[in-house]
């Protein structure tokens, strides 16, 4: 069987992206670290947002990383699942709200 596209161990190599473009890679990681610092939002809130977005983006690396991060912050599995539902609701809402565009178009073409 061929290897899967995603390998959990690759997450540990994420930092290596700076090797092929040090300046941009470093800028990205500096920015990333800054974003997740305690600010107007707590680091805990940011971690939950990241977990939800990891799901809507369907990134397995981010899902692993932020599942661990939220656990480390003492966040319960019920809170984690609720955050994912928020992401899911926005994602499905974003799909459905385009239904209005479809309706508008139908009305225009076939009204």
């Amino acid at each position, binding site marked *: 069987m061929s290897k899967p596209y995603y390998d*959990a*161990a690759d997450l*540990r190599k994420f930092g290596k992206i700076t090797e092929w473009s040090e300046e941009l890679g470093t800028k990205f990681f500096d920015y990333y670290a800054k974003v997740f610092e305690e600010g107007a939002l*707590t*680091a*805990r809130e940011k971690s939950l947002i990241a977990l939800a977005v990891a799901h809507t983006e369907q990134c397995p690396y981010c899902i692993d990383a932020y599942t*661990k991060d939220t*656990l*480390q*912050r*003492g966040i*319960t599995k019920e809170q984690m699942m609720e955050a994912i539902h928020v992401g899911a609701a926005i994602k499905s809402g974003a799909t459905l709200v385009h239904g209005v565009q479809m309706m508008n178009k139908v009305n225009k073409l076939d009204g």
Partner: protein
Amino acid sequence: MATKSLKKLGNDLAQSNKQIEILSNGIFKSGELPTFKDKISETSQFPIKAKKLEILQINVGYMCNQVCDHCHVDAGPDRKEIMTRDTMRQCLEVIKNSGAHTLDLTGGAPEMNPDFRWFVEEAAKVGIKDFIVRSNLTIIRANKKYYDLPEFFKKHNVHVVSSMPHWTRGKTDKQRGDGVFDKSIKALQELNAVGYGMPGSDLKLDLVYNPSGAFLPGDQVAMEKDFKKALMDDFGIEFHNLFAITNLPIARFLDYLIASENYEDYMYSLVEAYNPAAVENVMCTNTLSISWDGYLFDCDFNQMLELPVNSKSRHISEFNEELLEGRNIVISQHCYGCTAGAGSSCQGVVA
């Protein structure tokens, strides 16, 4: 949830040499883990040297009323190792004559040692500044003979440090057994009722949090805030400080990591979170751990791995503070647990 110790189950990991073998050789699919020795050598911090002795941690036995999944002692009701009154007498001599200002009683459940109260009474007379008993809380509710422990602790001005895995029932019971959360809450309320943990009270009550699974503890300050709010809102409980402690890959926690296929990732997490600033203050630098049979170790973890102190003074009967000071600390891969992130010790973060 475990019901028996690894020792009772005849599990290979009950043997310290098997644990050290796994820790030293690794079982890694991808890459190699740097040795702790190499890692601390990068910043010229090898060897770690013992400073002046400040804390004597005495393990009065491995018997416990609980069998927690993550226990680094592999403690449980089936463990029979228990400190005798004779060894306690030798400890008292050392306490009197050493420069240590803190006495830290641990186990197992230290209260289950039949001479526990005698020892506390005698030790309290010696004039130690901080006298800690590490209580698992449920022992206070385990049976009638322990119901008066809060009063007993108060009488001898004992500093109570208790483990509390989480402020939710589910997480606590998963790690420590069904019903542990409710009993712990009751015990905390009883400690509060005699004055422990109240704002401004001299009766110190601190909690210890360690993660329920294969991840590192979060920020101690943030966790303390969450614990305080939840325990107050839900149960009206007060306490002083929360210490966040990293689980070290030893005994039952090591067994769990391997069985759940988390060992490799966990070790990497520890190495990735390695913080050279934490090395300076790892607890072995100012602490000595004394086993139930009187042997001396750099810490409770080395005790469990049967790695004795690197000194001619190896037993409480031949205790020599001068010989012990400046000794090289015995290290292995488990030490990564003390130097990850903000560091971890019996008193919480160190960096």
